């Protein structure tokens, strides 16, 4: 028995110039916010951009971007709708407001299904908001996509960075390119994370200060793009 879906994935992604997986070693570091704002900033610079929320059990980019009342179009597969200038795809189109408790094998299957039926067309960038950690989605994505690169989000916390080190080690072991590490929610002047990232031979993409007002911008893209957070992400665009 052969799963035919995996054989078509390369074809589905062939029109995409750059695939960037925004990943983290653990949850709660602002990965989805970085992925969403990065996609918006790239689109602002006239790039054609897709955003794919792969955090199947806890999707949140639709909340960050205030996306509601849209659905993909059925056309020999599914075509993601254009929202805020982004081709946007998320499992939330199908799970609605319900919890989707998926085990590892289910995550793999849902991921393969969406990769095999989604027609992205031509894109300069596909930004993927990964689930946290080094689980099934990450391993499947590495297995199934050829030109993927990782952008890793950490905080200043040693707890977060400890998991980032494991992620870096895994990606390097698998020879998967790492664009660099972003230090998010920075609240002090310490250069500890930057130095450790650089000592691992990985690019340090920059710092994003902790912004207590970012919550007020959730769901409002124009307000989100005016934050210090967005300004810092914009500065990183040239490095990716």
């Amino acid at each position: 028995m052969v799963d035919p879906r995996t054989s078509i994935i390369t074809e589905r992604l062939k029109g995409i110039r750059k695939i960037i997986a925004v990943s983290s070693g653990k949850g709660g570091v602002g990965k989805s916010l970085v992925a969403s704002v990065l996609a918006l900033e790239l689109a602002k610079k006239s790039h054609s951009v897709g955003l794919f929320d792969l955090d199947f059990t806890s999707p949140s980019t639709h909340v960050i971007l205030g996306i509601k009342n849209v659905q993909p179009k059925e056309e020999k597969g599914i075509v993601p709708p254009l929202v805020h200038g982004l081709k946007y795809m998320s499992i939330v189109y199908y799970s609605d407001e319900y919890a989707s408790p998926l085990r590892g094998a289910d995550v793999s299957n849902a991921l393969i299904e969406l990769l095999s039926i989604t027609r992205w067309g031509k894109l300069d960038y596909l930004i993927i908001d990964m689930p946290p950690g080094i689980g099934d989605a990450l391993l499947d994505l590495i297995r199934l996509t050829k030109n993927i690169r990782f952008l890793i989000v950490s905080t200043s916390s040693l707890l977060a960075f400890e998991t980032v080190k494991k992620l870096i080690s895994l990606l390097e072991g698998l020879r998967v390119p790492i664009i660099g590490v972003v230090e998010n929610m920075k609240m002090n002047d310490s250069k500890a994370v930057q130095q450790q990232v650089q000592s691992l031979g990985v690019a340090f993409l920059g710092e994003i200060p902790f912004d207590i007002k970012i919550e007020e911008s959730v769901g409002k893209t124009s307000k989100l793009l005016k934050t210090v957070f967005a300004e810092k992400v914009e500065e990183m665009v040239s490095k990716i």
Partner: protein
Amino acid sequence: MHEWALAEAVISAASQIAEKEGLKEVTEVKIKVGELQQVEMDILEFALSQLKTAQLKNTKFNIETARAKLTCRVCGRTWFFSKEKLNEKTAEAIHFVPEIAHAYIKCPKCGSPDFEIVEGRGVWLESVKGVT
């Protein structure tokens, strides 16, 4: 027309298998389609006929359906998926991503969403036969 995308995957996989096994012509492709995905057979068959490559021009596609068997991981109850119990929107969501069944379907005995899709999930290639 989600079936079209699945048909493309079948043609692509069958072609890759044929190439790997050195088949000049593919005579038969056996496909198993699980009921959970609620594939429209007419559309799938039409798409397969339209997408045939030269190597598959005389291929007979044998499509067999499999009931979707679900087993609860909590209490062990096994039951079969039934589309009739779902509203249109839910059925369509499961059609696109069968794993979304976990958001809508619960074990009929204990109410848990933690069940295994034992068989009958989606589209599988059972065999590819041809002449070398």
